[in-house]
Every structure is written in structure tokens, then in C-alpha cells.
């Protein structure tokens, strides 16, 4: 009966919006879920959630989860999983602390060494997964235990700190405003805040314009090939919401201290990884690998090497997250990153990736991480205990996946 479905599925305008919405429920659903959650917590926290200082905090608090979610998405799309990232994050933080505080290494040397060590850790795990076909669940479960133990051993069970200011800048620093103070002072007056970071606002505006411009270009291309894309009204409403939210957030940030360094790092990484996964040959091959490993291999794709590289990449990102995390706490503790792999994995699944591999998007993983982050933050402001928080987060993860499966069965 498959012939019938193929020949009737594409009746363009007749079923129109409803049909389109049904097939793209997931993407819109995710966006609206994030907005709904933000509106909800904004209301119940009496406006605390979206205060400039809290928005800045939200980014800082979630940066390491998001950085790792980028790598985790690739690992999961390739059909694997990495349970060790929380432990690796802790281990690299500990290593950085020992290098700087005990051995007196310089900050740049420490950072470079730590990233390399992260890559090596990823390589050590990826090797067994890729070339020996040992299930990644088992290899990285072992890694999780090994590196948890290794951080304890490195730190001798103690907290090590503090870090020099140069290192702390990784996470708690802000990008200074490039615009003359005279200009920004006037704007601050209008905004009614102590200062106004014009650079942050400018970046927000440029980003919004770029999003719309790229979207329009894509639409024009699809149209030229007669590919049925997003209906025009959907496109504009979605972009209005995304850009509105973006401008609103950057405005708020601008009235506080401007762009946090880590937000810039994160933003650049998100763009790079979205580009790699969607627009490059290697990205395409990762989806093919996760979609059907045997077919990918018989199409000339070096599946082992790709799997290996996915883990190396994950290791480097986990190391970067470890540095950011240590810099933020200004100390390395043996408990750092405990259980964080679950937050990262949850973010990727909430973001629409499939356990079986082959599907999922960077943007989804980032939104998924923010959904978790806003809930954490909002519930903490409300003073909800950690007990309830965990239960609620667990149920949200389950609900997101059920929603996914339900949608798929509807599409048939």
C-alpha cells in the first residue's frame, strides 16, 4: 500500500496548513514549550526570571550543559551515547586546578593542555566503540567511573582553588563595550538602567537580521525547485517570535553588564556546530551513519573513523565545559559534574533526537537545554526543593519523548 501513500502524501495546497503543522509539530512544539515555560515562571516568580541579572545568570549556569549538548547531539545522532561527560568535566576541572594552583602553569598553557587531554580521553573511549564495536553505553559507563575516580585521586579528595583572574574570565568575564561611552550613556538613560552595552544590543540586532535573511534565502531556493516549504505565515510568525525573543534578551543583557564571554563562546560554537551538522559533507555522513550504518558503509562512508571522531569531539567539548565550570565556581571540587551527563543527554532528547540515531538537530538540543535550564532556575527562585525539582524534570523528559513518539505514530 506504500505506493498509495507516496503518491498522495504530497498533495500540496489542498491539505495545506494542517498537514504541514502535523508533520512539523515537534519543532514548533519545542519552541512554544520553551516560551510557555518562560512565561509561566516569569509570572509565578513575579518577574524575577527575566530580570537582566537573572538572564545573564541563566546563560552562565547553562553554558556548560549547552557546550556538551553540542557534542552529545553528534554522538547520539551517530547512534551512540556518552555517559562519561560529567566525570570528564570534573576531571578536566581538577586537572586545570592542579596545573595552575599546584604546578604554577600559565593559563593559556593549561587551557590548551586540558583541551588536548579531553580529546585524548574521547579518543581512548571512541577507539573501543569505533574499531572494536563495543557498545558505547558500556565503554562510557566505564569511563564515567574511571574519571570520577581520577578526579578524586588528582584532588586527593580536597577542593583546589582559587584560580587567577585570567582563568576566571573564561566564564565570569564580559566583553567590554566597543562603542564610546557618550553614546551608551544616553541610551542607558532612555532604558532607565545604570549602563547600556551597545555592543550587546548591536550583536542581537545583527543576529536577528541574519536569521531572517538566511531564512528568506533558503525559502527562495526551495521555491525555485518547487519544494514545498514552510507556509509563509508560519515563517513570519516563527521568525517574529524568535527575533522578538532574541532582541528582548539582548536588550535585557545590555542593560546589565553586556555580553558574558561564555555566551560569546557558546554562540559561536552553536553556529559552527549547526553549520557542520546541516551544511557539510561530514555532518551529512554522521546522519547517514546513524540512520543506517550498513548502508552508509556500503556507500563508501568510513563509519569507524566518523564514530571515533564523534567521541574525540565530545571529549574536547567536555574539557571546555570542565574549564568553564571550574572557572565559574573558582575552585575544582571532586563532586564537580556529578550526574551532569544526565542533564546533557536529557537536553538532547528533549530537543528531539532519537535514541536510535540518525535524527536530531543542534538547535533542538540547545532549546532542550534551555528548557531544562529555565525550569531549574525558575523552580529554584520559587524555592521548590531539589526533591520536587528532580521529579518534575524527569516527568518533563518523559513527556517530551512521549509527545515525539505520539507525533510519529500520527504521521504514520
Amino acid at each position, binding site marked *: 500500500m506504500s505506493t498509495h501513500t507516496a503518491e498522495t502524501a504530497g498533495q500540496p495546497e489542498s491539505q495545506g496548513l494542517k498537514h504541514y503543522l502535523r508533520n512539523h509539530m515537534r519543532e514548533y512544539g519545542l519552541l512554544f514549550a520553551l516560551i510557555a515555560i518562560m512565561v509561566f515562571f516569569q509570572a509565578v516568580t513575579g518577574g524575577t526570571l527575566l530580570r537582566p541579572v537573572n538572564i545573564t545568570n541563566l546563560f552562565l549556569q547553562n553554558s556548560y550543559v549547552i557546550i556538551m549538548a553540542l557534542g552529545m547531539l553528534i554522538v547520539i545522532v551517530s547512534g551512540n551515547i556518552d555517559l562519561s561527560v560529567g566525570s570528564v568535566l570534573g576531571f578536566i576541572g581538577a586537572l586545570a586546578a592542579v596545573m595552575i594552583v599546584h604546578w604554577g602553569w600559565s593559563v593559556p598553557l593549561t587551557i590548551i593542555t586540558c583541551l588536548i587531554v579531553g580529546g585524548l580521553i574521547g579518543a581512548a573511549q571512541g577507539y573501543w566503540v569505533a574499531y572494536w564495536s563495543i557498545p558505547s553505553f558500556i565503554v562510557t559507563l566505564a569511563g564515567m567511573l574511571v574519571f570520577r575516580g581520577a578526579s578524586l585521586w588528582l584532588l586527593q579528595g580536597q577542593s583546589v582553588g582559587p584560580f587567577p583572574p585570567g582563568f576566571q574570565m573564561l566564564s565570569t568575564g564580559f566583553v567590554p563595550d566597543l562603542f564610546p561611552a557618550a553614546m551608551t550613556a544616553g541610551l542607558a538613560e532612555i532604558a532607565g538602567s545604570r549602563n547600556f552595552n551597545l555592543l550587546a544590543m548591536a550583536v542581537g540586532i545583527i543576529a536577528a537580521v541574519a536569521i531572517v535573511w538566511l531564512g528568506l534565502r533558503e525559502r527562495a531556493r526551495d521555491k525555485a525547485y518547487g519544494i514545498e516549504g514552510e507556509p509563509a505565515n508560519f515563517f513570519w510568525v516563527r521568525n517574529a517570535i524568535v527575533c522578538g525573543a532574541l532582541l528582548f534578551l539582548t536588550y535585557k543583557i545590555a542593560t546589565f553588564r553586556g555580553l558574558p564571554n561564555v555566551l560569546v563562546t557558546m554562540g559561536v560554537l552553536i553556529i559552527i556546530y549547526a553549520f557542520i551538522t546541516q551544511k557539510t559533507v561530514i555532518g551529512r555522513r554522521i546522519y547517514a551513519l546513524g*540512520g543506517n550504518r550498513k*548502508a552508509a558503509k556500503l556507500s563508501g562512508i568510513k563509519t569507524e573513523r566518523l564514530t571515533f571522531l564523534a567521541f574525540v569531539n565530545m571529549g574536547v567539548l567536555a574539557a571546555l565545559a570542565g574549564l568553564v565550570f571550574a572557572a565559574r565556581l573558582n575552585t575544582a571540587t571532586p563532586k564537580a559534574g556529578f550526574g551532569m551527563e544526565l542533564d546533557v543527554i536529557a537536553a538532547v532528547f528533549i530537543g528531539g533526537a532519537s535514541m536510535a540515531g540518525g535524527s536530531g538537530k543542534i538547535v533542538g538540543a540547545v532549546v532542550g537545554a534551555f528548557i531544562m535550564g529555565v525550569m531549574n532556575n525558575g523552580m529554584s527562585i520559587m524555592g521548590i526543593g531539589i526533591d520536587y525539582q528532580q521529579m518534575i524534570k524527569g516527568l518533563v523528559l518523559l513527556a517530551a519523548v512521549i509527545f515525539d513518539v505520539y507525533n510519529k505514530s500520527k504521521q504514520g
Partner: protein
Amino acid sequence: MTLLLEMRGITKEFPGVKALDQVNLQVREGEIHAICGENGAGKSTLMKVLSGVYPVGSYDGEIHYDGHLAEFKTLRDSEERGIVIIHQELALVPQLSIAENIFLGNERQTGGVIQWQETFRRTEELLAKVGLRDAPGTLVDSIGVGKQQLVEIAKALSKDVKLLILDEPTAALQENDSRKLLDLMLELKAQGVTCIIISHKLNEVRYVADTVTVIRDGMAVSELDASQGLSEDRIVRDMVGRDMSQRYPDRNRRAGEVVMAVKDWNVWHPEHAERQVIKNISFNVRAGEVVGIAGVMGSGRTELAMSIFGQSWGRGISGEVSLHGKPIDVSKVDRAIDAGLAYVTEDRKSLGLILDESIRFNTTLANLNGVSDKGVLNEAEETDVAERYRKALATRTPTVMQKVGNLSGGNQQKVVLAKWLFTEPEVLILDEPTRGIDVGAKYEIYSIINELSAQGKAVVMISSEMPELLGMCDRIYVMNEGAFVGELSAEEASQERIMSLIVSE
């Protein structure tokens, strides 16, 4: 004879599609009734209505079975009345024994404790009925597909089956296993079991069927009585709705220079190191030539192709592959592709396609460098390429962004072909290129193959269907137990010649 089953005016609609339209089906007691039709004609839907997978109320029309109006709500309801379906994809658990599989869900038990002795004794009786001599404790994993099919039938018999429905039972079987199965059907008929068989293979239908119902586009278009003689051409005509005097398109035979030559090819089994699977095979294929490889399943045809294509199968591979007289490196799939080889796999769903992705995604997958610049994909160019092959191969789809999982078998095969054509190969190895594809689409695939050879490509075609090889190939190598046992030109080749070469070894 009395009617065992009468389905009257069955209409079943899915959103936007009328899968069945006023279908009537009459099955007499004790006959073998064949249902023929192209993929997507509605055969399986009809059987799902009959067996209660689509419960009463979800379709229009009436089913009379065994003298009563039947209103099945679930599969269990129909099984209780003695209707058992054996599906195309076998529903056995490979890690369990034959006996465990036969009584799965129907265990011989007292108070939840399985009575192993009785289970084994009953299993032996049932296996004897279907002519299997394996021990009841044998793991299903360790017996071949042909025997697994027989286990399925034994399982059906264990349920006191009155009406046995076999959906494409021989699709995965080799010639002599198919024959055994068909003979078993005739035997069951003699014991009073009524059978419905759904099949593409018209020679098999002719062999066993008493009556044939042909379904096309959700309608029963004809009922043919075997006692008045069944003509395959008539069945084919009814199936496709047009006269198909020719099942194979004409081809101009014009072989040029030798393109690919394989010399002294030896391959050992990847797990059983002592088993040599390919024994000293040498062959060649010329430009513009279609060369067939005939042989029963398990003779090593697929293993030969896959070992040549990037050593994707086997170990201890030795021998030489040359293209235009120069040795080439085929030790990795990407190197084989670069050298100019393409291999269309036997199993397109699990080895050829990424079903969740679009036609465009699949079309460019084996040659992403052809649609990218410095590692960055040019999606506009990808769409161009996919569109070009969609038109060239007449793939029926609204757009190239359609998921390939939603396409019919024939259209999926065209996507696989498009993928390999885009790598611009000189040699195309086609492994069972028309398996599970309906008659009309087969003709289209044959035409594509002819066109490729007319363009000067060298084509190697592996097939279990001898008429297909005879109809398409300029030269046929006969393979048996890992070695080539003969080579026949198109003029010399006949089914009898090929079989006798296989048997004489």
C-alpha cells in the same frame, strides 16, 4: 464444493486513499486460492481485513466464514476460528528452539508451568507433518530460511488451522526449497486444509492454485479457474491492466572491450576461518554488456560481489581486480567507488537506503564530493541532481524531499540506482535488482539496465530468477558452491542448461 469463505463488497479507506473498493472474494473449501496483484494493489490490506487486524466496523462489506457472518475484532478472534496468516517477514524468535517457537503464546502448560515433554512430543508430530527432521530443541537461528518457513507452517498446524494464508511464502527461498513448500501446500490440501497464497511468482501460482483472483488498484478484476488452464500472460495482463506481451524489453547486443576483469578470486568465511566461500573465480565483463551470475541461494553470489566491492564481506581475500587492464585497489568501499565500481545491494531496505531520509539525501550519499565544495554541501545542486535522476528514472514521487521509506519497492529501487549512477561508475553490480518489485516496475528497471548498457556501462547482474537472467543477459556465468561451473552465451543458455550445470557438480 461449498464455500468456506466469502468476502462481499469489502471497501476499506485510509485517509485520502481507497485501498479496497467493493472487493469480492470466494474461497471454496479445500482449494488453494491464489491472490495476485502488484505491490500496493491491496492484497495485504484484504488479508488484514479478513484476519481482524482491521477490526469489524473499520471497513464496509461482509465476511461470511464457515457458514456464519464473521465479525473479527482482533487477530485472536480469527485464529480461534482457524484462520492463520503466515507473513512475508517470518515471525519467529531466532534465539528460541523450534518447539518453543511453535507453541509461543500457546504453551502446553499446567498452571503456568510448561510441560516440556508434551511440547516436544507434539512438536515432533507437527514437524513430521511438514517433512522436517530437525530435533524440536534446535534453535531457529541455526536452520535456514526454507526450514524456518516450514516451522511457521507447523506452528499454524498446531492451532488446528482451517484456512491457511501464506503471504509471499517463497520470496526468500531458493528454487528447491520453494518447490518443497509448494508440494507441502498440495499435501495439506489433500488433508483438507484450505489455503490462500499471495505470490508474485506466476509459475508457482500455476503449480498449486485451483483458482486465481487478481486484484488491481483495490479492486478484484478477475477470477480465473485453473481447470480451464491458467495463462501467465493473462494473469500479468490483469495485474498491470495492459497487455504485456513482452516482459523483457528488447536490447541491442553490442559488447565492446573488456572493462572489468577479476582473476583468481578467493574468499574465506569471516567467522569460520576454515570455510572457503569463493573458490578461485575469474570472470570479466565488457563495455555495454550485461553479464548474469546464476546460482541457487547460498552459492556465494552475494559474497562474491560484496568481497569485490571494498572487501565488505569475508576475510583472507586474494586475487586481482583490473579495470581496462590495469589492476585497481578495491580494498575499501570508497576506493572501489573511486575506481569506478558500484554495487546495488540485494537487500535495499537494510543495506541500500536510509529509509528515514529523503530521496535527495539518499541520491547524493555515495558521491557527496560531487555536490560540495571544500566539504560544504551545495543543497541547490543536490536538489538538481536528485531531480535529474527522478526524471531520468521516472521515479514516482511528488518531490525529491519525500522520505524514501514512504515509497513503493520499485521506486525505492530507482532511488538506489540513482545513488549509484551519480557516482558515474563504469561497472555496475546489481544484486537481485528486481526482488520484491511488481511486474510493471520490473519492466522499468530492465529498461533502465538496457539503457545503461547502451551507454557503454558494464553490468553484472545477480539473480535468483532464471527467466530474468535469460531475458536480460548477454552472457551468464553459472555458480555453485563458491565456484563458477559454467559460462553460457545468451544463445546457449536455457533454464535446463543452467540447472544441469548446477546439478552436475
